[in-house]
């Protein structure tokens, strides 16, 4: 199998006249990293991996050994559709290993693999389908305020507008790169768009999210437009989320589905949800990893604020979408907190770990809260036992710090590095004097 895959890649490199093969991998913060090799080196890379100095990659640095190996995953080999055929290029995702071949603990892809293996030992395959929101802005200068390119609203038919044609071209490119798109539309806010991907296993999907962000930005940049996955770029309009539709399968059977439940949710699904709810605070720093992430999680913008669930309440953390009748494969839950600036490998890892913990320990699912929680006072919420999501990155980091669940899911290396890095980010933010403060206090005080 492995040999046939290898041959397939090598023959394709030759037959399609590939000039450069880009080896892709991801740093701990979720930035796509890449280095290119010539086709002549490809065989070597597939056999033995390519070694490189990992110390310059965020979260890779270790005390003793700096060199690591990039091992191409031949199943992810793809010709890049936007490069002219004369100078054809291909990309392949890599797993990062130590020089002796053991998985490198700083590699997010290996972390996700480890968590998926844990699920597989219980017979589960984890499927994810994200709804990814993002904005298109005029290029503007560094430090300037973002300028939207259109003023369309939700589902607006803006046939002539440039952002819609950008979105169309993006989708075409995604499809040729093995990333099927389910829906796409203009979102609520000016210049905001949403593209929903069709579900795949979590590893494939994490790769797809990385490719997705790259393709969206690349195609926008070709038209001198800036695409951004910043969670809350404009203060007065809704931010960009990455809602995740989640399910576990056992073989061909959806382990989340039950005929006997009014919402078609199995006990497995309920315990998984209970796990997500109970550990929601602990995993928030990973699913929402920037200072800016917490400016999206505020009342009034369809983003979740409370740790609650409901069949159809968009203010809740988890929603249970109604699948088409008789389609038991479509029974799933939708986690609404993550944003598209997260590291998908790490986010999927901690989400899965929280859900599995719920299943292992048989957590009881709390009552559904279908009321509008935004209209309730703190006292009423406390009475219902409904907590809030962390209010800031600082809050989230404090909760994460004491979480053995997150430490186990990420592994010590990434857990420690992540906390260190993000605390530094928070400190930097804390000392910043914002425009808000100047406007409010300078003259008044």
């Amino acid at each position: 199998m492995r040999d046939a895959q290898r041959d397939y890649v090598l023959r394709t490199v030759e037959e399609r006249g590939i000039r450069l093969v880009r080896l892709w991998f991801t740093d701990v913060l979720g930035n796509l990293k890449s280095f290119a090799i010539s086709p002549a080196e490809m065989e070597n890379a597939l056999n033995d991996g390519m070694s490189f100095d990992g110390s310059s990659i965020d979260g890779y640095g270790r005390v003793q050994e700096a060199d690591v190996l990039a091992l191409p995953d031949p199943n992810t080999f793809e010709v890049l559709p936007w490069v002219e055929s004369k100078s054809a290029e291909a990309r392949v995702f890599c797993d990062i290993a130590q020089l002796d071949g053991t998985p490198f603990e700083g590699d997010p892809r290996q972390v996700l693999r480890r968590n998926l293996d844990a699920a597989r030992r219980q017979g589960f395959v984890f499927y994810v389908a994200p709804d990814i929101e993002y904005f298109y802005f005029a290029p503007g200068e560094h430090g300037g305020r973002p300028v939207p390119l259109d003023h369309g609203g939700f589902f607006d038919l803006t046939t002539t507008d440039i952002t819609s044609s950008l979105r169309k071209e993006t989708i075409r490119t995604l499809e040729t790169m093995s990333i099927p798109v389910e829906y796409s539309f203009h979102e609520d806010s000016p210049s905001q768009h949403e593209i929903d991907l069709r579900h795949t296993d979590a590893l494939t999907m994490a790769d797809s999210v990385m490719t997705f962000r790259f393709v969206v930005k690349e195609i926008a940049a070709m038209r001198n437009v800036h695409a951004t996955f910043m969670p809350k770029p404009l203060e007065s309009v809704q931010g960009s989320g990455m809602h995740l539709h989640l399910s576990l399968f056992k073989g061909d059977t959806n382990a989340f589905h039950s005929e006997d439940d009014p919402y078609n949710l199995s006990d497995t699904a309920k315990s998984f949800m209970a796990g997500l709810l109970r550990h929601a605070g602990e995993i928030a720093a990973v699913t929402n990893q920037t200072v800016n992430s917490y400016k999206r999680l505020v009342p009034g913008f369809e983003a979740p604020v409370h740790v609650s669930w409901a069949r159809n309440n968009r203010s809740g953390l988890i929603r249970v979408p109604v699948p088409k009748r008789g389609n038991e494969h479509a029974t799933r839950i939708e986690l609404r907190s993550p944003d598209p600036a997260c590291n998908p490998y790490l986010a999927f890892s901690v989400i899965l770990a929280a859900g599995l913990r719920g299943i292992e320990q048989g957590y009881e699912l709390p009552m559904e809260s279908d009321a509008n929680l935004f209209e309730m006072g703190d006292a009423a919420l406390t009475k219902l036992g409904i907590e809030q999501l962390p209010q800031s990155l600082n809050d989230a980091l404090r909760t994460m710090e004491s979480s053995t669940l997150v430490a186990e899911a990420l592994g010590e290396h990434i857990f420690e590095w992540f906390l260190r890095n993000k605390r530094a980010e928070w400190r930097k933010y804390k000392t910043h004097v914002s425009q808000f403060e100047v406007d409010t206090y300078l003259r008044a005080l």
Partner: protein
Amino acid sequence: MLAVFPDSPGVELARTLDLSGYSWKGVATPELMGRLQPAEGWMGAVVCCDEDPEGGWAACRALRRLDRPVRRILVLVTGAHIGDLEIRENLFDDFLLSPFHPRELEARLRHLFYNELTAPSSSVVEHAGLRLNLETYQATFGGSPLDLTYMEYELLKYFVQNPGRVFSREVLLSEVWGYEYFGGARTVDVHVRRLRAKLGEEHAHLIETVRSVGYRFGSSKWSG
């Protein structure tokens, strides 16, 4: 695509072929065997020598004489005519006594086409404009290259080599992925969806979803 002689075979035969997922075309006379064959040639033939032995054997001869001679012919004979087989060993590859039991017909066909399903006989397979070079691993559609991942290529190859047959997800997983697949049973759906996208909207129907069973590549009469 299987050639079936004559063009209106018995109900039992038609039913069995359709239900076991073969796509087939009835051919009225031996002379039409060449004209009606699909671009990639007949995959095999089922020839009824029970009602019209003479016409049936003529059909077998015609099939063997085509530019792409048909190498997998199943003949139906009655007990009274079983002696006819003796001097015509070169004209058929397996036979079945008529009247037959559908399960036996199914088993014989499966055996007859076993090699077709597992070992490609040539290095190029084609179907309706789709062309796969098995030596270079390159796929083209209407002459332009298709960029596929390895597993997309392997799945498409399996489909093109077995047009008209219905496969369950489990069969596709074990035949195409072996046991090393990563993404679970839904992997098949994921890859079918990707292949459809890469074939383009007009040709996405080449891979057809057979409700609550699995997938079929190329058309079948049963789906109407």
